[in-house]
Structure formats: C-alpha cells, structure tokens
C-alpha cells in the first residue's frame, strides 16, 4: 500500500491557528447570510475563493480520515485475519450517526466504522480513528462496557465517552508524511483486535 500522507491543507489547518480560525469562521457562516466582512463585488469574488479553500480543508480532511481508517484499521483487520465485518449502511438506523458531511466535521473529526462478529450475539463494536491538533488517536467503543483490558499503547481507563483510546501525545505528526507512525498505529489496532475477538 502506498504510504499515506496528510494533505497539506489538513496539516496546515491542524498546525496553524490563523488558518484554523479563518477556515472555522468561513465554515460557520451560513450560506443564507450576507457575510458582513465583505464590502464590494471584488471582495465577493475573493470571499468565494476563500470559501472554496475552507471547503477544501473540510473535504480533504474527511477523505483523509476515510483513507486513514483503511490504512490502519482496514489493514489491521486484514493482516490479523479478522472475522469482524463492517456493518453495511443499509442495516444502520437513522439514529446511528450515518456519515453526513456535517457529522464528519462536527464530531471532532473522528471517523469510525461499526463492525460485528459473525457469531450470533456478538455485539457491534465501533472502531474509530481521529486526527486532531492533539495527534492521531485510535479508539474502540463497545456497548455496554464490555471492553477487555487492552495492552499498551491503549489507555487503561475508559474516556468520558466510554471509549478506550490510544495515547495521543505519542502520535502528533510533525510533518505531513506519517512515516513510521502508520505502522505503529496498525500494530496498536492489531493488539486491540486480538483482545476484542477473544
């Protein structure tokens, strides 16, 4: 698999406060409202170019998260020969947080997929990945609190959302290239899968 890089737009958004504030400001503006900061037709043209830049960050981030999930959880499932399978959209309910663009963006830039075991009664598990300014984090949610202890780098306690997550501070990308970080994340994902499927 080709090495996965963080898109430069997303990396700048995560590492530069000015860009993040500008993009957040543009994305928060409702398209039905006149943007009061523009004052002429020339500025209107520039404003719409800037709006495209903000959408670009959002879309590239969403697509990056999907690719990242494939590169980490997808690869781990495959390499571990896992029997877990992804729950298709068709079988998900309206309140199951299907991935609308807003959901992707507003849910703390996390991306998870629901998986299930083939055996009867195996609960649905959410396998998630998140890239935020604090770093790249994997998390697992299983309802109710049935998650076995997961080995390091997984945290021993459940976080506030009832998830078990990897420690983020070790996974802060300092450049768009993920380098060896992807392998570390796959190893952590495989370690979790080996416990979850027991």
């Amino acid at each position, binding site marked *: 698999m080709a090495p996965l890089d963080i898109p430069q*737009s997303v990396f700048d958004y995560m590492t530069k*406060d000015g*860009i993040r504030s500008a993009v957040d400001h543009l994305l928060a503006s409702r398209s039905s409202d006149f943007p*009061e900061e523009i004052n002429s037709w020339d500025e209107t043209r520039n404003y719409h170019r800037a709006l495209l830049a903000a959408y670009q960050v959002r879309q590239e981030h969403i697509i990056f998260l999907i690719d990242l999930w494939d590169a980490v959880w997808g690869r781990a499932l495959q390499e571990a020969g896992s029997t877990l399978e992804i729950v298709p959209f068709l079988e998900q309910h309206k309140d199951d947080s299907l991935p609308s663009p807003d959901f992707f963006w507003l849910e703390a830039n996390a991306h998870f997929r629901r998986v299930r075991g083939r055996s009867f009664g195996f609960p649905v598990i959410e396998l998630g990945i998140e890239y935020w300014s604090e770093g790249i984090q994997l998390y697992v949610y299983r309802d109710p609190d049935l998650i076995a202890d997961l080995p390091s780098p997984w945290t021993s306690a459940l976080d506030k959302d009832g998830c078990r997550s990897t420690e983020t501070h070790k996974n802060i990308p300092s450049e768009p290239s993920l380098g060896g970080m992807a392998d570390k994340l796959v190893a952590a994902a495989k370690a979790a899968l080996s416990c979850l499927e027991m």
Partner: protein
Amino acid sequence: MSADWHPICGVSPPDWSPAWLLRLNDTLASSLRKAIRPDALGGAPIPVWQQSRKSLTDVFGHIDSPNHLLNVPDWNWGIRLTEPQVTKGWQHFLSPAAVGHDLAAKRVAVFYEAICIASKRQPTGISISDLSVEAEHSLQIGGRRKAIDLLFRWKEQSASEQNCAIVVELKFGHVLTTGQLPSYKKYVAQQFIKGDGARHKSGFFVLSPRTRRRDQNKLRRNTDWSVAYWPAFLRAFEKIYTARDLPYDNAFNMFRRAVWQMKDDF
C-alpha cells in the same frame, strides 16, 4: 421535382462525400479539445492548496502573523463585552499614555485607514504628532450632557501644523439619536479642527452593525459622516496591521479577538 440545373450553367456539383465531412468533424473536435482546458473535461480538480491558502490571505490578511487576531485562541469566558468596554478598550490600546506616542500613532494610522476602507472613503495620508485619544469625551448640547465615543486629536506634521480630529461613534445595536451627528460634528469642528488642510484630514465615522433603514436615513442626511460595519472594519484593520512591522502585543490581539467574537451580535 426540381430539375438538375448544373449541366445547364456548367457548374460541377460539390463533392459531398462523407470522407470530407468526417475529416472536418475531426478537425473541429481536435480544435475544441485543444481549446478546452483538459481538467474541464475530466472533472475539475480541487485547486492546489497553495492557491487556496493564498485566497485565505487575500481575504483575511497575513493570517500567519502572530499579530493577527485569528492567531489568538478563541476565548470563551461566557461574557459579552459591552459597548463602553469596547470603546474604552480601543482607547486604551491606541492611546499614547498606555502604549507610547510612537506606537499609538502607528496604530491610529492603521485604525484610520481601516475605517476609511471599510466606509468606502479614500484615506488621506496622515502624519501624527501630539496625539490624544479620548473615550467618552463629554460635551453639553442644549443643556444635556452627551459623550463622543472615541475622539482622536493630533497635529499634522507639516510646515504649518494643523489640528485634526477623528470622531468615531461605536455602536452595537443602539440606534443613533436624532440630532446627535450634526451637533457632534459642529462641536468638534469648532473646538478641535484648525487649519486649512485639517478638514481634509479629519473625519466623522459611525462604526456599527449593519444599520437599520431609519439609521441609514439619518446618515444620509449627514453626508459628512461615514458609516463602516464592524466585520469589514476589523478585517481591513487586520490586513493593514499585520502588513506593518509592529511589535507583538498579545493583550491588544486578544482584545480584537474578543471584539471579533461579538460578530454574532453584528
């Protein structure tokens, strides 16, 4: 049925063979393909990020500058600044007493240019000496006490020194009172503006959210006053301020960020 007239007039009919038409079609299609940018045919790609990034800078100014309000973390103290607090904040950060004359003069120049741009007025170059910046400058009009929100006064550095003044009424939803603008202007022009060129350098501004129609009518009757809307003013201020080599001041940046965050009220 029409007769074939070609033999009569000695003209040979054109060759309408399909081969020629097909060749013409190829030529036209090839020219079209060359004329249209390749990416327009295959689904336009997302712009290169460097271009997009530049478009953010075009709108907001140097967002990488540590002095840009967008570089200040969003603060959430659960409070909203009041109109007098914002007025006094501007006065503080633009005042020679608080930041020294040199820096205050540079900031006032930025403020003046930004409010001119936001109000579609042509800024005139100003060179400031003996600057004073007052908030809530009190005056008596018709026996009633009034206050000018922000009053900038300075001497223009030229061969014959001129006394100039800029008045800014800062509004966050309060409507203008009748008679307020002409009486302020008359008072300031009589008291503080002296010299032939001073009128040209001086200015009267209302900084407000988008005005209601009745306020617009008041402004229309007072053509000496220019109106600027907060978001356009702040954006212009940031563009000019971050383009100049001014010292980093976290407190001033935080203050402007706080005003920017009031945008939902604008």
